[in-house]
């Protein structure tokens, strides 16, 4: 295998532009899983982003929190200001693996790994995060809720690099992140839900119930307009419009649907049809 070691971001963009098959690598927490036996993965060419200081820090602007492409979960967990403004980021980060993964795993990596069970993506999406892509052809911004087009399919050209994630600063009247795994710590989500309510409206984002992390627009509409469901089961027809869970080795479709309904019902008991 081959690895390219760019000195700076422009060099990285040049390398990406010259070979569409190149795979950017940051924390490696997804790419190196079972690495020795994944011999086919050894044939590819990787682009090491890890030393690119320009991608490391997160920053605040008047309107946004901007996470650099190399911002890790741990960077977020230990920052009290992020915890104040975007508590779901911290909630989710604390449930990504454990410290060993949190110290290496990046938010941008979570986005481009495109797992339907991702922990970081749901909360970013519930905060209306925007993916900032850069290439030699310039900069492009794609709202995260429009970033995925199918299982592991993304609105990212091979020559583009995710350089940042922009999260608009808003006042949230309600926000919650629920991750249901088969154990409390270090589990892949069987169901994930991130829910926020702000002046921009309701955002309900689900994990592990569809080929991608996705917003649940039918549930959001029901939340905006009511009426309040009288039981979790009342939500099932609405959920059916948003989610298409499957049976796999981690859980079953029926369990995922039921849990989603129950979490929505109980978390949002008092809130259906209410303004922010």
């Amino acid at each position, binding site marked *: 295998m081959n690895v390219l070691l760019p000195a700076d971001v422009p060099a990285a963009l040049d390398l990406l532009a010259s070979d569409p098959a190149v795979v950017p690598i940051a924390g490696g927490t997804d790419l190196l899983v079972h*690495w020795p036996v994944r011999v086919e993965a050894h044939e590819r060419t990787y682009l090491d982003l890890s*030393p690119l200081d320009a991608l490391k820090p997160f920053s605040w602007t008047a309107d946004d929190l901007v996470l650099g492409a190399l911002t890790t979960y*741990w960077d977020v967990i230990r920052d009290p200001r992020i915890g104040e403004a975007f508590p779901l980021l911290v909630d989710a980060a604390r449930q990504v693996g454990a*410290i060993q*993964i949190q110290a290496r795993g990046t938010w941008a990596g979570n986005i481009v790994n495109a797992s339907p069970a991702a922990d970081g993506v749901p909360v970013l999406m519930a905060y209306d995060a925007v993916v900032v892509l850069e290439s030699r052809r310039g900069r492009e911004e794609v709202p995260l809720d429009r970033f995925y087009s199918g299982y592991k399919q993304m609105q990212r050209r091979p020559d583009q690099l995710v350089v940042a994630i922009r999260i608009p600063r808003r006042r949230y009247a309600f926000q919650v992140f629920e991750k249901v795994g088969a154990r409390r710590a270090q589990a892949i989500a069987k169901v994930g839900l991130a829910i926020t309510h702000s002046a921009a409206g309701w955002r309900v984002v689900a994990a592990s119930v569809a080929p991608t992390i996705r917003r649940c627009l039918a549930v959001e509409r029901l939340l905006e307009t009511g009426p309040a469901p009288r039981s979790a089961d009342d939500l099932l027809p609405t959920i059916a419009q948003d989610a298409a869970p499957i049976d796999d080795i981690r859980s079953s479709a029926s369990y995922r649907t039921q849990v989603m309904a129950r979490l929505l019902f109980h978390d949002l008991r008092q809130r259906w049809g209410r303004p922010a």
Partner: protein
Amino acid sequence: MIPISFTLNGSRVAVEVDAADRLLDTLRYQLALTGTKEGCGEGECGACTVYLDGLPVDACLVPTYQVRGRRVDTIESLDPVALEPFERCGATQCGACTPGVVMTAWWIRGHGELLRTHTIRELMAGNLCRCTGYDGIVDAVKDALGDDGRETGDG
């Protein structure tokens, strides 16, 4: 092969590595530091925990070329005398998870402030142990922390 140098347990080392080499294998098979163990190869068990620039990471998920110019510390760098609480509290049985457990525990010990927001059990969740049931480990961490070991976290 890629020539790299980095600081390992306080000393500068230079090695040539393949792009496919994991830090875990470089440490164990190239540098003969076999204290770092492989338990799963997927970042789940924490037996290969080392510090990269002071933070605990799973060495099975680190491509070795990424540590160029950085600081790596392994179980071999710890002061055996200071590990007495782990011996006394029964923090080790079979020992296969132990170096990783000790590395994480030692990092917690140096960051008592984390217990304002985290529990010891949450911070130790990246290290699987199949022998102790974790009580011996948690007790040892508390003991090693002394007064800092009182958890006020939300877990």
